[in-house]
């Protein structure tokens, strides 16, 4: 079956929203899939809003710019307000617990609350919150292998930061763990 995933990732500038998207795109490339990464660009700065659209597909991608998404990874309240309505019925929202105070209200989509910033602070590296979100997303969607993400990370991170890869790997696992615990408690 041909699978296509249309994903929006949105939050504040500086939260690693664009690099999270790039990791998805690189990992998709490594698994031989078609992919596109389209950032919002403009007079944006740290603290402003940033988002990117990532499409991963088994077939050639037509439009890299779309307005309806299968999944939304949301790292702040304004982004939830903007993109909750843009998720297709039956789609998924992954939102960061501490920055999204008013959770999604739609009943025709599945929402996952992820305490990424809290967990990142426990790991004493608040910058890996985006990796925790990514881990949670991958665990639910079963989209790409963690090993492809780690290979992608080596591409996205400048070489001087490569010593941070194990930390990011741990964060990715943490995100997956949060979801599997959730599933466990649901059972």
């Amino acid at each position: 079956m041909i699978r296509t995933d249309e994903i929006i990732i949105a939050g504040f500038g500086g939260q690693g929203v664009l690099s999270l998207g790039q990791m998805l795109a690189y990992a998709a490339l490594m698994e031989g899939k078609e992919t596109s990464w389209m950032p919002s660009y403009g007079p944006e700065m740290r603290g402003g809003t940033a988002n990117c659209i990532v499409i991963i597909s088994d077939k050639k991608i037509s439009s890299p710019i779309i307005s309806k998404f299968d999944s939304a990874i949301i790292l702040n309240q304004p982004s939830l307000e903007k993109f909750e309505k843009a998720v297709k019925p039956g789609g998924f929202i992954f939102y960061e617990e501490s920055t999204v105070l008013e959770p999604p209200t739609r009943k025709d989509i599945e929402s996952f609350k992820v305490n990424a910033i809290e967990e990142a602070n426990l790991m004493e590296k608040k910058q890996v919150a985006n990796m925790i979100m990514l881990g949670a997303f991958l665990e639910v969607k079963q989209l790409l292998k963690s090993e492809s993400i780690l290979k992608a990370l080596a591409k996205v991170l400048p070489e001087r930061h490569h010593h941070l890869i194990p930390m990011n790997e741990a964060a990715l696992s943490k995100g997956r763990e949060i979801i599997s615990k959730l599933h466990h408690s649901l059972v």
Partner: protein
Amino acid sequence: MKENMEKEIRLMKGNEALAEAAIRAGMDAYFGYPITPQSEILEYLEEQSPKRNCVVLQTESELASINMIYGAAGAGARVMTSSSSPGISLMQEGISYIAAAELPCLLVNVVRGGPGLGTIQPSQGDYFQAVKGGGHGDYRLIVLAPATVQEMVDFVFEGFRLAEKYRNPALILADGALGQMMEKVELPAEGSLPKVVPAWATTGKTKDRERNVITTLHIQPEEMEAMNLRLEKKYAEMQCEVRYEEINTSDAEIILVAFGLSARISQKACDLAREKGIKAGIIRPMTLFPYPSNILAELAEKIDAFLVVEMNAGQMVEDVRLAVNGKVPVHFKGRKGGMIPTPEEILVEIEKIVIPKQVLQD
């Protein structure tokens, strides 16, 4: 030191892919001035040039860039400049001179919303400027319109090749989104575009040939007209270079005509229309000059309507209407000012055109 780059697959931003392609296509020199949304081209080239055997210079202005292009092309070098809309406007005098002097070069316009300083968001508002002149006088550019990051690469090679074949400036007309987005690209091996012998170059007269003169001044009208006739003949010969992509046109009742990013969004709209049982197809011009008028004229005999989709107030639609020549209605949907149409809003336009007709038939 020169690195030897083999064919490879990478995930790259459109701007960076274009810059890497220029080096691999054997570009000797680049002159440019930064402007969003294409500054990565200059940045990438600045970073690469020390190890990649090409001259890269950030000039003091766009006027300097285009005149350095004029000079380097006259010396027989394979040269490129890039900018975005307001910067390309500044270059128009030089572009007219280079076209008149019949020198090859590659120009890149990563278009943003205008007029004026406008916005840094993507637009297709420079279509008229690209295909109808821009600078003064009777001249044409070879205009290529990429729709993917892969074509940002491929059209660099094609642009240099065509520019040198016809001794004419070629222009890549992209937009801000294509410059900023990342996609998978296959980069050709370095050196895969053979160097031509620049017979026009003013590199010093040798005994075995006549003097080369590069000038755009022909003060005698008889001489100037002869020059105009020669250019006209050359532009007519370029017609054989027409390229376009045709998707789902064989059974189509409505055909969308769009270039660049608009074409990809339109393709998604066509897929949505097909899901609803509307037979929609696409013609995507890949060359904007020469323009694929013949295929549009042929299709006008078979279909009910055209819908032209552009990120401007309606520019290419005029060329579609010329080609269709009143045989069927040519509708238009445009977003302006850096706004990008969504597939859903294009679908609404398709339904507006097709559904009233279906109701009539019922």
